[in-house]
C-alpha cells in the first residue's frame, strides 16, 4: 500500500466513560478541533469508522439502560440506533444448557469487516460474545459457531472468571488476505481462530505463558489483552497478553515472547499493542505496573511508550514530552492507535482523561486534550 503524505485530513474517535469526542485536523495534523461530546453521560466502549464509506459505529451503554450500537452515515451529525442490537440467542427451554440464557452487558469491541465487504462489521461483548452485521450495523446476528460452541465454558474457565471490568471478547481481527479467517481474543479464554467465517473455532495459545493457571501449558484459559493482525502483510500477528508481549510464528503456530527483550525494570505487562500500518517489524506498547496487586498504572509514575523496529528483538523507550514523574495514568486496550500517514501519527487516551499524540512515530509527544472523562478507546484515521 502506498503511504499517504501530509497535508491530509485526520479523524480521531475518542470513546470515554461519559461520551464520544471527535478530534479533527484538516491541515496535516497541524491544528485540531474537537467535536462533542456525543452521547453525553453514556459509556462509549469503542467507536470506529469505515473510511471507505464514512460510516461510524459506536458501542453505547447508559448506566440505567441496556447496551446498544449507534451509527452515523454523515460524519457524526446524526445518529441512529441499530434496529437489532447485538444480543445472545434466546433460551429455547429450561434444559437447553449453559450456553443459553446469556445477556449482553455491554458491547465492548467493534471491528470492520473485510475490505471486500464494506457493509460487514463485527462486535465483541461482555460477557464473551461475537456478533456480525452484514447491513452496515443496522441489524446484528449472533455468531453461534462461537457463542454456542460446546466447549465454550471450558475455554473461558467458567463464567466466574472475569477481569475487573467484566469478561470480554475483544481483538476481533479479519484477515486482510482471507475474509473467512477470523481471530479473536477472549479474556479470559485465550486467542481463537476460525477459517470458515465463524462456524468452527480452534484455540491458538501455544507458547503463551499462563502463570495464573494450574497448568501453565494449558491449551485455553489465557488472558490476551490485545491482539493485532497486520493490515497489509500476511501472517504477522502481535499480542499484548496478561503474561507478556508475543509475536506469532505462523509456520509453527506458536507464540514467541518478545517482551523478554524489554528492560527488566519496566517489564512487558500492559494492555494495548499498536502496529505500524505498513512496516510489519514496527510496533508500540504502553507498559504498566503489573506487579503484586496489579496497580495498572504507569511504571513508577513515569509513563512511556516502548517501540520495537525489529519485530520485538529490541525496544526503545519513547517518553519525550510525556510527564517525567508523578503521572499515574495508564492506557486501556483499545485506547491507543496509529493513523496511516507518513510519518505515522500515534495517539493514546489515558485513564485520567488526556489524549496524547506524536506525529513522528513516537519520538516526541504532545497533549492534544485535557480534562476529558476516563478514556476507553482511541481510533485514528487518515482520510
Amino acid at each position, binding site marked *: 500500500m502506498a503511504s499517504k503524505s501530509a497535508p491530509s485530513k485526520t479523524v480521531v474517535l475518542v470513546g470515554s466513560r461519559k461520551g464520544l469526542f471527535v478530534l479533527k485536523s484538516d491541515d496535516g495534523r497541524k491544528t485540531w478541533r474537537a467535536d462533542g461530546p456525543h452521547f453525553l453521560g453514556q459509556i462509549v466502549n469503542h467507536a470506529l469508522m469505515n473510511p471507505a464509506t464514512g460510516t461510524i459505529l459506536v458501542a453505547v451503554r*447508559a*448506566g*440505567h*439502560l*441496556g447496551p*446498544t450500537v449507534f451509527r452515523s452515515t454523515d460524519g457524526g451529525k446524526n445518529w441512529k*440506533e*441499530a*434496529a437489532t*442490537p447485538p*444480543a*445472545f*440467542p*434466546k*433460551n429455547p427451554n429450561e434444559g437447553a444448557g449453559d450456553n443459553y*440464557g*446469556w*445477556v*449482553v452487558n455491554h458491547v465492548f469491541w467493534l471491528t470492520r469487516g473485510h475490505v471486500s465487504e464494506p457493509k460487514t462489521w463485527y462486535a465483541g461483548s461482555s460477557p464473551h460474545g461475537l456478533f456480525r452485521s452484514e447491513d452496515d450495523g443496522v441489524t446484528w446476528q449472533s455468531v453461534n459457531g462461537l457463542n454456542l460452541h460446546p466447549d465454550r465454558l471450558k475455554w473461558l474457565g467458567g463464567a466466574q472468571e472475569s477481569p475487573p471490568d467484566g469478561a470480554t471478547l475483544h481483538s476481533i481481527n479479519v484477515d486482510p488476505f482471507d475474509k473467512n479467517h477470523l481471530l479473536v481474543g477472549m479474556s479470559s479464554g485465550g486467542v481463537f481462530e476460525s477459517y470458515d467465517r465463524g462456524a468452527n473455532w480452534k484455540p491458538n495459545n501455544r507458547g503463551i505463558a499462563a502463570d495464573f493457571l494450574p497448568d501453565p501449558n494449558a491449551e485455553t484459559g489465557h488472558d490476551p489483552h490485545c491482539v493485532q493482525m497486520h493490515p497489509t502483510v500476511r501472517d504477522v500477528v502481535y499480542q499484548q497478553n496478561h503474561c507478556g508481549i508475543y509475536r506469532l510464528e505462523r509456520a509453527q503456530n506458536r507464540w514467541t515472547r518478545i517482551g523478554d527483550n524489554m528492560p527488566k525494570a519496566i517489564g512487558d505487562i500492559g494492555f494495548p499493542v499498536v502496529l505500524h500500518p505498513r512496516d510489519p517489524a514496527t510496533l508500540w506498547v504502553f507498559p504498566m505496573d503489573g506487579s503484586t496487586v496489579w496497580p495498572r498504572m504507569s511504571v513508577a509514575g513515569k509513563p512511556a511508550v516502548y517501540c520495537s523496529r525489529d519485530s520485538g528483538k529490541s525496544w526503545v523507550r519513547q517518553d519525550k514530552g510525556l510527564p517525567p514523574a508523578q503521572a499515574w495514568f495508564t492506557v486501556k486496550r483499545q485506547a491507543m492507535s496509529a493513523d496511516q500517514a507518513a510519518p505515522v501519527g500515534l495517539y493514546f487516551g489515558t485513564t485520567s482523561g488526556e489524549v496524547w499524540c506524536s506525529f513522528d512515530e513516537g519520538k516526541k509527544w504532545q497533549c492534544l486534550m485535557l480534562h476529558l472523562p476516563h478514556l476507553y478507546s482511541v481510533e485514528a484515521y487518515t482520510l
Partner: protein
Amino acid sequence: MKVKLPTPLVEYTDGIREVEAIGDSLDALLFDLDRRYPGMRFRMIDEQGQIRAHIKLFVNAELQRSLVVSLRPSDEILIVAALSGG
C-alpha cells in the same frame, strides 16, 4: 393508557415524559411502546425477556417484577430508571 417515562428514555420520544400505549399485559404494552418508539424495549428488557437490573416497572404505583401482568385501559404505568451509583 398513560405511561410515564424516566429521563434516560426520552431520547426516544423527543423529550416527552408521558406517552400513550396500549396492551392487555405489561409485556404487550412494552411491545407497543417499541412499535411507537423503536429500540426502547431492548433498553429495558434483555434478550432473555427479563427486566434489566436498573429498570423498575410500576402499575398504579405497585412495583411489578414480571411482565406477565394483566392491564386495564385505566391503569397508569410508571417506568423508573433506578439510581445506580455515581
